[in-house]
């Protein structure tokens, strides 16, 4: 009789052979291939230059997206899941791209706003508008002040906490 929890199949002998497959580099260039020790600084410079060039194109898109957000706030808060989803999609896009293309502060505000929208069911228009305006201001300033941005972020977090404490917003149910 089998012990509890073990059926006949579990008792079957299974032998396995462990093999080490060559790496992609070895497959392509042979086993004598040795990996580069470090990234060539000239290549790194070229990569940075690529980002710089594309950032000039991205800044127009970012400005347009932020401009689009302001009139969408009311619907995002009260207009149902489609409007909310569309708003979130734009913010999420900025969260990922703004920092990569040289606007880390805009990215930080977008991240804060994404977290707020992910966490709460009921959205406060003022909190959202303050976030969007902070993003717009950070983009318009040539060199936004990091400390000022952090202080603004802190204030926004306080505002969210206050809204949550006063019952103006509801925690999202976990899936």
């Amino acid at each position, binding site marked *: 009789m089998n012990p509890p929890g073990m059926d006949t199949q579990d008792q*079957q*002998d*299974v*032998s*396995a*052979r*462990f*093999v*080490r*497959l*060559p*790496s*992609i*580099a*070895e*497959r*392509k*260039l042979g086993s004598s*291939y*040795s*990996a*580069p020790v470090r*990234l060539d600084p000239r*290549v*790194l410079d*070229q*990569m*940075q230059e*690529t*980002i710089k*060039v*594309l950032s000039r*194109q*991205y800044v127009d*898109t970012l400005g347009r997206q932020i401009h689009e957000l302001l009139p969408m706030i009311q619907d995002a808060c009260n207009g149902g899941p489609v409007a909310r989803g569309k708003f979130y999609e734009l913010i*999420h*896009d900025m*969260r*990922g*791209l*703004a*920092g*990569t*293309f040289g606007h*880390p502060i805009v*990215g930080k505000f977008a*991240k804060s706003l*994404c977290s707020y929208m992910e966490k709460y069911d009921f959205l406060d228009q003022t909190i959202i508008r303050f976030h969007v305006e902070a993003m717009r201001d950070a983009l318009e300033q040539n060199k936004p002040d990091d400390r000022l941005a952090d202080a603004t972020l802190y204030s926004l977090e306080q505002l969210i906490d206050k809204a949550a404490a006063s019952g103006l917003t509801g925690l999202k149910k976990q899936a």
Partner: protein
Amino acid sequence: MARNVFETLTVLVVDDSSHMRHLMLGLLRALGVGEVVLANDGEDAWAKYILHSPDVVITDAAMAPTDGFALAKRLRENDPASFGRVPIIMISAHTEVSAIERAREVGITEFVRKPLVPRTLYERLIAVVNRRQEAAIVASAPTSAVTFL
């Protein structure tokens, strides 16, 4: 002179943002990657994966209609047994533990957070290209029963 391994690679880049696709194209070209194939979502990526058999897949997480997680799952279900798993690098702004756990569950090889830093891209790419995989071949099963460890 030693050959740059990146020259020998075909890399499939999947992202719904045209800015990000162009950026990845530029960065990978700067690294000397031989062929860069661009796709704008998971469905497009699957078609191009079949066509180009890339050595590495770099994907965004959030895309519609097929996101990076669903794409990875599909790729893992079709891993070629002879050459091991195709490395999948996921680039995402979602850095919560739940997203990373989900990435691990669907078989993502490397997880890179946005904002993307060029050096990080290089480090992850060189890591997956140099990494050897271990596989367990079950003797009593058909040859296709290979489990990558």
